[in-house]
Protein backbone atom coordinates (compact mmCIF):
# COMPACT_ATOMS: atom_id res chain seq x y z
CA UNK A 1 0.00 0.00 0.00
CA UNK A 2 1.34 3.38 -0.94
CA UNK A 3 1.57 5.79 1.92
CA UNK A 4 0.31 9.24 1.14
CA UNK A 5 2.12 12.21 2.65
CA UNK A 6 0.19 15.45 2.76
CA UNK A 7 1.55 18.27 0.66
CA UNK A 8 1.23 21.90 1.69
CA UNK A 9 -1.11 22.83 -1.17
CA UNK A 10 -4.67 23.21 0.00
CA UNK A 11 -6.97 23.38 -3.00
CA UNK A 12 -10.10 25.35 -2.25
CA UNK A 13 -11.37 25.63 -5.82
CA UNK A 14 -13.15 22.47 -6.89
CA UNK A 15 -11.60 22.83 -10.33
CA UNK A 16 -8.04 21.63 -10.63
CA UNK A 17 -7.66 23.26 -14.02
CA UNK A 18 -9.77 26.10 -15.32
CA UNK A 19 -9.09 27.49 -18.80
CA UNK A 20 -10.90 30.36 -20.47
CA UNK A 21 -10.16 31.57 -24.00
CA UNK A 22 -6.58 30.36 -23.89
CA UNK A 23 -4.63 31.10 -27.07
CA UNK A 24 -0.99 30.50 -27.81
CA UNK A 25 1.30 31.45 -30.66
CA UNK A 26 4.75 30.47 -31.85
CA UNK A 27 7.06 32.70 -33.92
CA UNK A 28 6.87 36.40 -34.71
CA UNK A 29 5.48 38.67 -37.43
CA UNK A 30 4.77 36.77 -40.66
CA UNK A 31 6.11 33.54 -39.10
CA UNK A 32 3.61 33.78 -36.25
CA UNK A 33 1.53 30.64 -35.99
CA UNK A 34 -1.44 30.08 -33.70
CA UNK A 35 -1.39 26.67 -32.03
CA UNK A 36 -4.13 27.14 -29.45
CA UNK A 37 -7.28 28.96 -30.44
CA UNK A 38 -9.41 30.21 -27.53
CA UNK A 39 -9.40 26.93 -25.66
CA UNK A 40 -11.89 26.47 -22.84
CA UNK A 41 -11.57 23.59 -20.44
CA UNK A 42 -12.27 22.64 -16.80
CA UNK A 43 -10.87 19.60 -15.05
CA UNK A 44 -12.35 18.64 -11.72
CA UNK A 45 -10.56 17.21 -8.75
CA UNK A 46 -10.01 13.49 -9.08
CA UNK A 47 -11.05 13.45 -12.73
CA UNK A 48 -9.20 11.35 -15.32
CA UNK A 49 -9.34 13.04 -18.73
CA UNK A 50 -7.97 11.75 -22.01
CA UNK A 51 -6.86 14.20 -24.69
CA UNK A 52 -6.77 12.96 -28.25
CA UNK A 53 -6.02 14.58 -31.54
CA UNK A 54 -3.79 14.47 -34.59
CA UNK A 55 -0.15 15.36 -34.46
CA UNK A 56 0.46 19.12 -34.40
CA UNK A 57 -3.00 20.02 -33.17
CA UNK A 58 -1.65 21.66 -30.00
CA UNK A 59 -1.97 18.86 -27.40
CA UNK A 60 1.62 19.13 -26.18
CA UNK A 61 1.48 22.93 -26.07
CA UNK A 62 -1.65 22.71 -23.94
CA UNK A 63 0.05 20.18 -21.68
CA UNK A 64 3.15 22.39 -21.23
CA UNK A 65 0.99 25.45 -20.49
CA UNK A 66 -1.06 23.59 -17.86
CA UNK A 67 2.21 22.16 -16.49
CA UNK A 68 3.51 25.73 -15.98
CA UNK A 69 6.40 24.99 -18.28
CA UNK A 70 5.57 27.88 -20.64
CA UNK A 71 4.41 31.40 -20.02
CA UNK A 72 0.77 32.00 -20.82
CA UNK A 73 0.28 34.57 -23.61
CA UNK A 74 -3.45 35.13 -23.88
CA UNK A 75 -6.53 34.06 -21.93
CA UNK A 76 -6.99 32.76 -18.41
CA UNK A 77 -5.29 29.64 -17.13
CA UNK A 78 -5.81 28.69 -13.51
CA UNK A 79 -4.07 25.58 -12.21
CA UNK A 80 -4.47 24.51 -8.59
CA UNK A 81 -5.71 28.00 -7.73
CA UNK A 82 -2.76 29.70 -9.40
CA UNK A 83 -3.48 32.14 -12.23
CA UNK A 84 -0.69 31.45 -14.69
CA UNK A 85 -1.26 34.39 -17.02
CA UNK A 86 1.39 36.81 -15.79
CA UNK A 87 2.71 34.39 -13.19
CA UNK A 88 6.37 34.78 -12.25
CA UNK A 89 8.99 32.14 -12.96
CA UNK A 90 9.19 31.43 -9.23
CA UNK A 91 5.40 30.90 -8.97
CA UNK A 92 5.49 28.49 -11.88
CA UNK A 93 8.47 26.63 -10.42
CA UNK A 94 6.73 26.18 -7.06
CA UNK A 95 3.49 25.13 -8.76
CA UNK A 96 5.31 22.46 -10.76
CA UNK A 97 6.10 20.69 -7.49
CA UNK A 98 2.39 19.89 -7.21
CA UNK A 99 2.15 18.65 -10.77
CA UNK A 100 3.38 15.21 -11.71
CA UNK A 101 4.62 14.80 -15.27
CA UNK A 102 5.05 11.61 -17.22
CA UNK A 103 6.98 12.04 -20.42
CA UNK A 104 6.81 9.89 -23.49
CA UNK A 105 10.60 9.66 -23.52
CA UNK A 106 10.80 8.66 -19.83
CA UNK A 107 13.61 11.17 -19.22
CA UNK A 108 15.07 9.17 -16.38
CA UNK A 109 18.42 10.24 -15.00
CA UNK A 110 20.83 7.71 -16.46
CA UNK A 111 23.23 7.83 -13.54
CA UNK A 112 20.56 7.03 -10.95
CA UNK A 113 19.03 3.68 -10.10
CA UNK A 114 15.31 3.14 -10.53
CA UNK A 115 14.81 3.80 -6.82
CA UNK A 116 16.91 6.97 -6.87
CA UNK A 117 15.02 8.25 -9.90
CA UNK A 118 11.76 7.82 -8.07
CA UNK A 119 13.24 9.38 -4.95
CA UNK A 120 14.11 12.52 -6.93
CA UNK A 121 10.36 13.09 -7.01
CA UNK A 122 9.90 12.34 -3.32
CA UNK A 123 12.79 14.67 -2.47
CA UNK A 124 10.54 17.59 -3.41
CA UNK A 125 8.27 16.89 -0.44
CA UNK A 126 9.39 19.07 2.45
CA UNK A 127 9.79 17.96 6.04
CA UNK A 128 10.65 14.32 5.40
CA UNK A 129 13.84 12.53 6.32
CA UNK A 130 16.00 10.78 3.78
CA UNK A 131 14.73 7.40 4.97
CA UNK A 132 11.09 8.47 4.68
CA UNK A 133 11.68 9.76 1.16
CA UNK A 134 13.39 6.50 0.26
CA UNK A 135 10.49 4.57 1.71
CA UNK A 136 8.06 6.53 -0.47
CA UNK A 137 10.20 5.75 -3.50
CA UNK A 138 10.26 2.04 -2.67
CA UNK A 139 6.52 1.98 -2.11
CA UNK A 140 5.77 3.58 -5.45
CA UNK A 141 8.26 1.35 -7.21
CA UNK A 142 6.50 -1.58 -5.62
CA UNK A 143 3.13 -0.17 -6.70
CA UNK A 144 4.22 -0.17 -10.35
CA UNK A 145 5.60 -3.70 -9.99
CA UNK A 146 9.29 -2.92 -10.05
CA UNK A 147 10.25 -3.68 -6.48
CA UNK A 148 12.86 -6.22 -7.55
CA UNK A 149 14.43 -3.83 -10.03
CA UNK A 150 15.04 -0.95 -7.62
CA UNK A 151 18.82 -1.15 -7.91
CA UNK A 152 18.89 -1.23 -11.70
CA UNK A 153 20.05 1.66 -13.83
CA UNK A 154 17.70 2.87 -16.61
CA UNK A 155 19.94 1.28 -19.24
CA UNK A 156 19.27 -2.12 -17.66
CA UNK A 157 15.50 -1.71 -17.83
CA UNK A 158 13.15 -2.39 -20.73
CA UNK A 159 11.12 0.44 -22.31
CA UNK A 160 8.04 -0.54 -20.35
CA UNK A 161 9.96 -0.73 -17.09
CA UNK A 162 11.44 2.70 -17.70
CA UNK A 163 7.98 4.09 -18.28
CA UNK A 164 6.78 2.59 -15.02
CA UNK A 165 9.72 4.14 -13.18
CA UNK A 166 8.81 7.50 -14.75
CA UNK A 167 5.21 7.03 -13.58
CA UNK A 168 6.37 6.12 -10.06
CA UNK A 169 8.61 9.20 -10.04
CA UNK A 170 5.71 11.46 -11.04
CA UNK A 171 3.48 9.94 -8.36
CA UNK A 172 6.09 9.98 -5.58
CA UNK A 173 5.94 13.78 -5.27
CA UNK A 174 2.31 13.43 -4.12
CA UNK A 175 0.94 15.52 -7.02
CA UNK A 176 -2.48 17.14 -7.20
CA UNK A 177 -2.44 17.09 -10.96
CA UNK A 178 -0.84 14.53 -13.22
CA UNK A 179 0.03 15.32 -16.84
CA UNK A 180 0.98 12.37 -18.98
CA UNK A 181 2.10 12.26 -22.59
CA UNK A 182 1.45 8.83 -24.11
CA UNK A 183 2.28 7.01 -20.85
CA UNK A 184 1.14 3.61 -22.09
CA UNK A 185 2.68 3.70 -25.57
CA UNK A 186 5.66 1.59 -24.51
CA UNK A 187 3.64 -0.85 -22.43
CA UNK A 188 1.83 -4.03 -23.38
CA UNK A 189 -1.95 -3.96 -23.10
CA UNK A 190 -2.04 -5.70 -19.70
CA UNK A 191 0.59 -3.44 -18.13
CA UNK A 192 -0.93 -0.42 -19.84
CA UNK A 193 -4.32 -1.12 -18.28
CA UNK A 194 -2.68 -1.82 -14.91
CA UNK A 195 -0.94 1.53 -15.02
CA UNK A 196 -4.08 3.41 -16.01
CA UNK A 197 -6.00 1.55 -13.31
CA UNK A 198 -3.39 2.72 -10.84
CA UNK A 199 -3.64 6.29 -12.08
CA UNK A 200 -7.43 6.13 -11.89
CA UNK A 201 -7.26 4.74 -8.35
CA UNK A 202 -4.92 7.54 -7.36
CA UNK A 203 -7.20 10.08 -8.99
CA UNK A 204 -10.16 8.88 -6.97
CA UNK A 205 -8.41 8.22 -3.64
CA UNK A 206 -6.25 11.32 -3.48
CA UNK A 207 -8.36 13.71 -5.52
CA UNK A 208 -5.55 13.92 -8.03
CA UNK A 209 -6.69 14.98 -11.46
CA UNK A 210 -5.13 13.31 -14.48
CA UNK A 211 -4.83 14.77 -17.98
CA UNK A 212 -3.46 12.19 -20.35
CA UNK A 213 -2.53 12.67 -23.99
CA UNK A 214 -2.98 9.30 -25.66
CA UNK A 215 -3.78 7.54 -28.87
CA UNK A 216 -4.15 4.21 -27.10
CA UNK A 217 -7.71 2.92 -27.76
CA UNK A 218 -7.21 0.14 -25.17
CA UNK A 219 -7.62 2.55 -22.28
CA UNK A 220 -10.39 4.78 -23.60
CA UNK A 221 -13.00 3.03 -21.48
CA UNK A 222 -11.12 3.81 -18.27
CA UNK A 223 -11.34 7.60 -18.41
CA UNK A 224 -14.00 9.96 -17.07
CA UNK A 225 -13.92 12.09 -20.16
CA UNK A 226 -12.35 12.15 -23.60
CA UNK A 227 -11.43 15.42 -25.26
CA UNK A 228 -10.70 15.74 -28.93
CA UNK A 229 -8.41 18.43 -30.13
CA UNK A 230 -8.04 19.72 -33.65
CA UNK A 231 -6.46 22.89 -35.07
CA UNK A 232 -5.91 24.32 -31.63
CA UNK A 233 -9.46 23.86 -30.44
CA UNK A 234 -10.97 21.38 -28.01
CA UNK A 235 -14.16 19.58 -28.79
CA UNK A 236 -16.23 17.80 -26.20
CA UNK A 237 -14.54 19.55 -23.33
CA UNK A 238 -17.53 19.80 -21.09
CA UNK A 239 -20.07 17.36 -22.41
CA UNK A 240 -18.63 14.16 -23.80
CA UNK A 241 -18.79 11.89 -20.78
CA UNK A 242 -17.96 8.25 -21.15
Amino acid at each position, binding site marked *: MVKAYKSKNNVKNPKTVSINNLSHFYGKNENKKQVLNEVNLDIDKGELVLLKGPSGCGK*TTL*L*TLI*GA*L*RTCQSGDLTVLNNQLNGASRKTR*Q*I*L*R*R*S*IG*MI*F*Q*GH*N*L*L*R*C*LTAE*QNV*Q*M*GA*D*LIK*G*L*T*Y*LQRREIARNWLSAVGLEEHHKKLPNDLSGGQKQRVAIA*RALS*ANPKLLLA*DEPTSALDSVTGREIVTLLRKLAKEQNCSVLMVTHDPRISDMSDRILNMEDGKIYGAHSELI
Partner: protein
Amino acid sequence: MNFSFLKFRKIPLAWLLLTRQPLRLAVAIAGISFAGILMFMQLGFRDGLFDTSVTIHKLLDADLVLISPRSKSSISMSGFPKRRLIQTLAVEDVEKTTPVNLNYLLWRNPENLKTRSILALGFNPSDSLLLDKGFSKKAYKLRNPSRVLFDKLSRPEFGPIEEWFLSEKKVETEVAGKRVIVEGLVELGPSFGADGNLITSRETFLRLFPANPPGSIEIGLVKLKKGSDPQLISRILNNSLPNDVRVLTKNQFIEFEKNYWKNSTAIGFIFSLGALMGFVVGCVVVYQILYSDVTDHLPEYATLLAMGYRLKSLFFVVAREGFLLALFGYLPAYFSGQILYSVIRSSTKLPIIMDADKTTLIFVLVLVMCMGSAAVAMRKLVDADPAEIF
Protein backbone atom coordinates in the same frame (compact mmCIF):
# COMPACT_ATOMS: atom_id res chain seq x y z
CA MET B 1 19.93 10.58 19.41
CA ASN B 2 19.11 13.40 17.00
CA PHE B 3 18.90 12.32 13.38
CA SER B 4 17.65 15.67 12.08
CA PHE B 5 20.68 15.88 9.77
CA LEU B 6 19.07 13.07 7.77
CA LYS B 7 16.50 15.60 6.57
CA PHE B 8 19.22 17.32 4.59
CA ARG B 9 20.70 14.14 3.17
CA LYS B 10 20.15 13.96 -0.55
CA ILE B 11 21.01 11.64 -3.37
CA PRO B 12 24.64 12.46 -4.30
CA LEU B 13 23.66 13.57 -7.79
CA ALA B 14 26.91 15.41 -8.57
CA TRP B 15 28.98 12.39 -7.58
CA LEU B 16 26.78 10.00 -9.59
CA LEU B 17 26.86 12.27 -12.65
CA LEU B 18 30.65 12.40 -12.48
CA THR B 19 31.20 8.70 -11.94
CA ARG B 20 28.72 7.54 -14.57
CA GLN B 21 31.49 7.78 -17.16
CA PRO B 22 34.65 6.59 -15.38
CA LEU B 23 36.88 7.16 -18.39
CA ARG B 24 35.82 10.78 -18.72
CA LEU B 25 36.29 11.24 -14.98
CA ALA B 26 39.78 9.71 -15.21
CA VAL B 27 40.68 12.08 -18.06
CA ALA B 28 39.38 15.03 -16.05
CA ILE B 29 41.34 14.03 -12.96
CA ALA B 30 44.47 13.47 -15.07
CA GLY B 31 44.05 16.91 -16.67
CA ILE B 32 43.55 18.69 -13.35
CA SER B 33 46.40 16.75 -11.76
CA PHE B 34 48.67 17.67 -14.64
CA ALA B 35 47.78 21.34 -14.20
CA GLY B 36 48.35 21.00 -10.45
CA ILE B 37 51.73 19.32 -10.94
CA LEU B 38 52.72 22.05 -13.40
CA MET B 39 51.83 24.70 -10.82
CA PHE B 40 53.63 22.81 -8.05
CA MET B 41 56.76 22.57 -10.19
CA GLN B 42 56.75 26.17 -11.37
CA LEU B 43 56.02 27.66 -7.95
CA GLY B 44 58.44 25.17 -6.38
CA PHE B 45 61.22 26.33 -8.69
CA ARG B 46 60.33 29.96 -8.12
CA ASP B 47 60.27 29.66 -4.33
CA GLY B 48 63.34 27.43 -4.46
CA LEU B 49 65.12 30.14 -6.40
CA PHE B 50 64.18 32.80 -3.90
CA ASP B 51 65.07 30.56 -0.95
CA THR B 52 68.39 29.35 -2.32
CA SER B 53 69.40 32.84 -3.33
CA VAL B 54 69.50 33.69 0.38
CA THR B 55 70.83 30.41 1.76
CA ILE B 56 74.16 31.95 2.72
CA HIS B 57 72.56 35.26 3.72
CA LYS B 58 70.52 33.46 6.36
CA LEU B 59 73.59 31.68 7.74
CA LEU B 60 75.65 34.83 8.22
CA ASP B 61 76.32 35.77 11.84
CA ALA B 62 75.35 39.45 11.65
CA ASP B 63 72.74 41.97 12.74
CA LEU B 64 73.69 44.53 10.12
CA VAL B 65 75.27 44.12 6.71
CA LEU B 66 77.26 46.74 4.80
CA ILE B 67 77.31 46.58 1.02
CA SER B 68 78.19 48.89 -1.82
CA PRO B 69 75.24 50.89 -3.23
CA ARG B 70 76.39 49.58 -6.63
CA SER B 71 75.82 45.96 -5.58
CA LYS B 72 72.77 44.41 -7.18
CA SER B 73 72.83 40.90 -5.75
CA SER B 74 75.24 38.20 -4.60
CA ILE B 75 76.03 37.44 -8.24
CA SER B 76 76.85 41.08 -8.93
CA MET B 77 78.61 42.47 -5.87
CA SER B 78 80.72 45.62 -5.95
CA GLY B 79 83.41 46.44 -3.46
CA PHE B 80 83.55 49.27 -0.92
CA PRO B 81 86.35 50.50 1.36
CA LYS B 82 86.99 48.21 4.28
CA ARG B 83 87.54 51.24 6.51
CA ARG B 84 83.80 51.98 6.40
CA LEU B 85 83.32 48.79 8.39
CA ILE B 86 85.94 49.92 10.90
CA GLN B 87 84.12 53.25 11.18
CA THR B 88 81.01 51.46 12.41
CA LEU B 89 82.89 50.54 15.57
CA ALA B 90 82.56 54.17 16.57
CA VAL B 91 78.94 53.46 17.37
CA GLU B 92 78.66 52.19 20.91
CA ASP B 93 76.18 49.43 20.10
CA VAL B 94 78.49 47.75 17.60
CA GLU B 95 80.16 44.76 19.21
CA LYS B 96 82.30 43.37 16.41
CA THR B 97 82.69 43.39 12.63
CA THR B 98 83.74 40.90 9.96
CA PRO B 99 84.99 42.01 6.53
CA VAL B 100 84.08 39.53 3.81
CA ASN B 101 85.24 39.22 0.22
CA LEU B 102 82.91 37.48 -2.19
CA ASN B 103 83.37 36.55 -5.82
CA TYR B 104 83.01 33.76 -8.34
CA LEU B 105 86.19 31.81 -9.07
CA LEU B 106 86.93 28.82 -11.28
CA TRP B 107 87.16 25.50 -9.45
CA ARG B 108 88.86 22.54 -11.10
CA ASN B 109 87.21 19.16 -10.53
CA PRO B 110 90.13 17.09 -9.21
CA GLU B 111 88.67 13.93 -10.73
CA ASN B 112 88.04 14.97 -14.35
CA LEU B 113 89.96 18.29 -14.30
CA LYS B 114 87.03 20.24 -15.71
CA THR B 115 86.52 23.76 -14.36
CA ARG B 116 83.33 25.25 -13.00
CA SER B 117 82.40 28.55 -11.39
CA ILE B 118 82.17 28.46 -7.60
CA LEU B 119 81.20 31.16 -5.13
CA ALA B 120 84.15 31.96 -2.87
CA LEU B 121 83.90 33.77 0.47
CA GLY B 122 87.01 35.19 2.09
CA PHE B 123 87.14 36.29 5.74
CA ASN B 124 89.54 36.50 8.67
CA PRO B 125 89.41 33.06 10.37
CA SER B 126 89.52 34.71 13.76
CA ASP B 127 86.31 36.63 13.00
CA SER B 128 82.79 35.30 13.18
CA LEU B 129 81.22 34.48 9.82
CA LEU B 130 78.48 31.89 10.22
CA LEU B 131 75.88 31.25 12.91
CA ASP B 132 76.98 27.60 13.12
CA LYS B 133 78.81 27.26 16.44
CA GLY B 134 81.02 24.44 15.19
CA PHE B 135 82.22 26.58 12.32
CA SER B 136 84.92 28.41 14.28
CA LYS B 137 86.83 25.13 14.77
CA LYS B 138 86.83 24.54 11.04
CA ALA B 139 87.70 28.20 10.37
CA TYR B 140 90.80 27.78 12.51
CA LYS B 141 92.26 25.49 9.84
CA LEU B 142 92.08 28.34 7.32
CA ARG B 143 94.89 30.18 9.07
CA ASN B 144 97.32 28.26 6.91
CA PRO B 145 97.55 29.66 3.40
CA SER B 146 95.78 28.04 0.42
CA ARG B 147 93.35 26.18 2.61
CA VAL B 148 89.62 26.13 1.84
CA LEU B 149 86.44 24.74 3.34
CA PHE B 150 84.26 23.11 0.67
CA ASP B 151 80.46 23.18 0.73
CA LYS B 152 79.48 19.52 0.71
CA LEU B 153 76.01 20.41 -0.62
CA SER B 154 77.61 21.71 -3.84
CA ARG B 155 76.61 20.00 -7.08
CA PRO B 156 78.47 16.77 -7.93
CA GLU B 157 80.10 18.43 -10.96
CA PHE B 158 82.70 19.87 -8.58
CA GLY B 159 84.01 16.36 -7.93
CA PRO B 160 83.73 13.74 -5.19
CA ILE B 161 85.18 16.15 -2.64
CA GLU B 162 83.14 14.98 0.34
CA GLU B 163 83.77 11.31 -0.40
CA TRP B 164 87.50 11.84 -0.78
CA PHE B 165 87.72 14.06 2.28
CA LEU B 166 85.83 11.61 4.48
CA SER B 167 88.04 8.78 3.31
CA GLU B 168 90.91 10.90 4.67
CA LYS B 169 92.35 11.31 1.23
CA LYS B 170 94.17 14.60 0.71
CA VAL B 171 91.90 16.71 -1.43
CA GLU B 172 93.93 19.07 -3.52
CA THR B 173 92.80 21.03 -6.54
CA GLU B 174 93.05 24.37 -8.32
CA VAL B 175 90.97 27.48 -7.78
CA ALA B 176 91.49 30.32 -10.24
CA GLY B 177 94.53 28.40 -11.48
CA LYS B 178 96.16 28.26 -8.04
CA ARG B 179 96.62 25.23 -5.84
CA VAL B 180 94.37 24.85 -2.79
CA ILE B 181 93.82 22.12 -0.22
CA VAL B 182 90.40 21.26 1.17
CA GLU B 183 90.72 21.37 4.95
CA GLY B 184 87.12 20.76 5.86
CA LEU B 185 83.50 20.59 4.80
CA VAL B 186 80.67 23.00 5.48
CA GLU B 187 76.96 22.87 4.69
CA LEU B 188 75.70 25.92 2.84
CA GLY B 189 73.77 24.74 -0.20
CA PRO B 190 73.77 25.68 -3.87
CA SER B 191 71.58 28.38 -5.36
CA PHE B 192 70.43 29.38 -8.82
CA GLY B 193 73.39 31.80 -8.85
CA ALA B 194 76.02 29.40 -7.51
CA ASP B 195 76.27 25.66 -8.00
CA GLY B 196 78.75 25.40 -5.17
CA ASN B 197 80.51 27.39 -2.45
CA LEU B 198 83.86 27.53 -0.73
CA ILE B 199 85.09 29.50 2.23
CA THR B 200 88.66 30.60 2.69
CA SER B 201 90.71 33.20 4.52
CA ARG B 202 90.91 36.73 3.14
CA GLU B 203 94.59 36.17 2.65
CA THR B 204 94.02 33.13 0.44
CA PHE B 205 91.10 34.86 -1.29
CA LEU B 206 93.31 37.79 -2.28
CA ARG B 207 95.96 35.37 -3.50
CA LEU B 208 93.37 33.55 -5.62
CA PHE B 209 91.93 36.83 -6.88
CA PRO B 210 94.78 39.33 -6.96
CA ALA B 211 92.75 41.86 -8.97
CA ASN B 212 90.72 42.53 -5.84
CA PRO B 213 92.18 45.58 -4.01
CA PRO B 214 93.26 44.54 -0.47
CA GLY B 215 91.41 47.49 1.06
CA SER B 216 88.15 46.62 -0.63
CA ILE B 217 85.49 44.21 0.60
CA GLU B 218 82.12 43.14 -0.81
CA ILE B 219 80.26 42.52 2.45
CA GLY B 220 80.75 43.94 5.93
CA LEU B 221 79.13 42.03 8.78
CA VAL B 222 78.28 43.95 11.93
CA LYS B 223 77.35 42.22 15.17
CA LEU B 224 75.51 44.43 17.66
CA LYS B 225 75.51 44.22 21.42
CA LYS B 226 72.61 42.38 23.00
CA GLY B 227 69.44 44.44 23.25
CA SER B 228 70.40 46.83 20.46
CA ASP B 229 67.86 47.82 17.88
CA PRO B 230 69.21 46.89 14.41
CA GLN B 231 66.73 49.23 12.67
CA LEU B 232 67.86 52.19 14.73
CA ILE B 233 71.59 51.49 14.40
CA SER B 234 71.11 50.92 10.67
CA ARG B 235 69.56 54.40 10.38
CA ILE B 236 72.32 55.96 12.48
CA LEU B 237 75.03 54.34 10.38
CA ASN B 238 73.38 55.22 7.08
CA ASN B 239 73.27 58.86 8.21
CA SER B 240 76.81 58.95 9.50
CA LEU B 241 78.69 56.95 6.86
CA PRO B 242 79.51 58.33 3.40
CA ASN B 243 77.39 57.43 0.39
CA ASP B 244 79.82 54.79 -0.88
CA VAL B 245 78.31 52.27 1.53
CA ARG B 246 74.82 51.14 2.39
CA VAL B 247 73.80 49.66 5.75
CA LEU B 248 71.04 47.04 5.83
CA THR B 249 69.62 44.93 8.60
CA LYS B 250 70.04 41.20 8.03
CA ASN B 251 66.39 40.88 6.99
CA GLN B 252 66.74 43.80 4.59
CA PHE B 253 69.84 42.12 3.16
CA ILE B 254 67.80 38.93 2.59
CA GLU B 255 64.97 40.93 0.98
CA PHE B 256 67.51 42.85 -1.12
CA GLU B 257 68.68 39.55 -2.61
CA LYS B 258 65.19 38.17 -3.08
CA ASN B 259 63.99 41.38 -4.71
CA TYR B 260 66.78 41.15 -7.24
CA TRP B 261 65.54 37.75 -8.40
CA LYS B 262 61.93 38.83 -8.23
CA ASN B 263 62.15 42.19 -9.94
CA SER B 264 65.40 42.55 -11.78
CA THR B 265 65.43 39.23 -13.58
CA ALA B 266 62.92 37.43 -15.76
CA ILE B 267 63.28 34.26 -13.71
CA GLY B 268 60.58 35.02 -11.14
CA PHE B 269 58.25 36.19 -13.91
CA ILE B 270 58.94 33.10 -16.03
CA PHE B 271 58.11 30.70 -13.22
CA SER B 272 54.99 32.66 -12.27
CA LEU B 273 53.96 32.62 -15.93
CA GLY B 274 54.58 28.87 -16.01
CA ALA B 275 52.28 28.45 -13.03
CA LEU B 276 49.71 30.64 -14.76
CA MET B 277 49.95 28.44 -17.86
CA GLY B 278 49.24 25.41 -15.70
CA PHE B 279 46.25 27.22 -14.27
CA VAL B 280 44.94 28.10 -17.74
CA VAL B 281 45.46 24.52 -19.02
CA GLY B 282 43.56 23.23 -16.00
CA CYS B 283 40.72 25.71 -16.58
CA VAL B 284 40.36 24.60 -20.20
CA VAL B 285 40.34 20.90 -19.23
CA VAL B 286 37.81 21.31 -16.42
CA TYR B 287 35.62 23.61 -18.49
CA GLN B 288 35.55 21.12 -21.38
CA ILE B 289 34.65 18.26 -19.04
CA LEU B 290 31.94 20.14 -17.17
CA TYR B 291 30.52 21.77 -20.30
CA SER B 292 30.17 18.44 -22.12
CA ASP B 293 28.77 16.92 -18.91
CA VAL B 294 26.11 19.63 -18.66
CA THR B 295 25.35 19.35 -22.41
CA ASP B 296 25.02 15.56 -22.16
CA HIS B 297 22.65 15.79 -19.24
CA LEU B 298 20.66 18.78 -20.48
CA PRO B 299 17.43 16.77 -21.03
CA GLU B 300 17.81 15.35 -17.52
CA TYR B 301 18.35 18.79 -16.02
CA ALA B 302 15.29 20.00 -17.98
CA THR B 303 13.33 17.10 -16.48
CA LEU B 304 14.36 18.15 -12.99
CA LEU B 305 13.29 21.73 -13.76
CA ALA B 306 9.96 20.40 -15.02
CA MET B 307 9.54 18.48 -11.78
CA GLY B 308 9.91 21.71 -9.80
CA TYR B 309 13.59 21.77 -8.96
CA ARG B 310 15.03 25.28 -8.87
CA LEU B 311 17.66 26.33 -11.40
CA LYS B 312 19.78 27.29 -8.39
CA SER B 313 19.68 23.66 -7.17
CA LEU B 314 21.05 22.55 -10.53
CA PHE B 315 23.78 25.21 -10.32
CA PHE B 316 24.76 23.67 -7.00
CA VAL B 317 24.96 20.24 -8.63
CA VAL B 318 27.43 21.58 -11.21
CA ALA B 319 29.29 23.49 -8.50
CA ARG B 320 29.60 20.30 -6.45
CA GLU B 321 30.92 18.52 -9.53
CA GLY B 322 33.54 21.27 -9.82
CA PHE B 323 34.44 20.90 -6.14
CA LEU B 324 34.76 17.12 -6.40
CA LEU B 325 36.94 17.46 -9.49
CA ALA B 326 39.14 19.96 -7.61
CA LEU B 327 39.51 17.55 -4.71
CA PHE B 328 40.22 14.46 -6.79
CA GLY B 329 42.51 16.34 -9.17
CA TYR B 330 44.47 18.02 -6.38
CA LEU B 331 45.33 14.91 -4.35
CA PRO B 332 47.32 13.11 -7.10
CA ALA B 333 48.97 16.46 -7.96
CA TYR B 334 50.01 16.88 -4.32
CA PHE B 335 51.49 13.40 -4.01
CA SER B 336 53.18 13.58 -7.43
CA GLY B 337 54.53 16.98 -6.41
CA GLN B 338 56.03 15.47 -3.25
CA ILE B 339 57.78 12.77 -5.27
CA LEU B 340 59.03 15.22 -7.91
CA TYR B 341 60.27 17.66 -5.26
CA SER B 342 62.20 14.83 -3.65
CA VAL B 343 63.73 13.87 -7.03
CA ILE B 344 64.67 17.50 -7.72
CA ARG B 345 66.14 17.93 -4.24
CA SER B 346 68.34 14.89 -4.61
CA SER B 347 69.46 15.70 -8.15
CA THR B 348 69.89 19.48 -7.90
CA LYS B 349 70.35 19.97 -4.14
CA LEU B 350 67.87 22.85 -4.40
CA PRO B 351 65.76 23.21 -1.24
CA ILE B 352 62.42 22.80 -2.99
CA ILE B 353 59.96 21.92 -0.26
CA MET B 354 56.23 21.34 -0.05
CA ASP B 355 55.45 23.99 2.54
CA ALA B 356 52.02 24.87 3.88
CA ASP B 357 51.88 28.14 1.92
CA LYS B 358 52.47 26.43 -1.40
CA THR B 359 50.13 23.54 -0.58
CA THR B 360 47.34 25.94 0.35
CA LEU B 361 47.96 28.33 -2.55
CA ILE B 362 47.84 25.56 -5.15
CA PHE B 363 44.75 23.97 -3.60
CA VAL B 364 43.06 27.37 -3.75
CA LEU B 365 44.19 27.81 -7.38
CA VAL B 366 42.87 24.34 -8.31
CA LEU B 367 39.62 25.11 -6.49
CA VAL B 368 39.26 28.48 -8.24
CA MET B 369 40.08 26.75 -11.54
CA CYS B 370 37.37 24.10 -11.06
CA MET B 371 34.73 26.34 -9.53
CA GLY B 372 35.36 29.07 -12.12
CA SER B 373 35.03 26.55 -14.94
CA ALA B 374 31.89 25.19 -13.29
CA ALA B 375 30.48 28.71 -13.12
CA VAL B 376 31.06 29.19 -16.86
CA ALA B 377 29.61 25.74 -17.63
CA MET B 378 26.51 26.67 -15.62
CA ARG B 379 25.58 29.18 -18.32
CA LYS B 380 24.71 26.19 -20.48
CA LEU B 381 22.19 25.09 -17.84
CA VAL B 382 20.06 28.12 -18.67
CA ASP B 383 19.49 26.45 -22.06
CA ALA B 384 17.70 23.58 -20.31
CA ASP B 385 14.09 24.30 -21.32
CA PRO B 386 11.62 22.12 -19.44
CA ALA B 387 8.97 22.83 -22.08
CA GLU B 388 11.06 21.02 -24.69
CA ILE B 389 11.02 17.68 -22.94
CA PHE B 390 7.40 16.79 -23.75
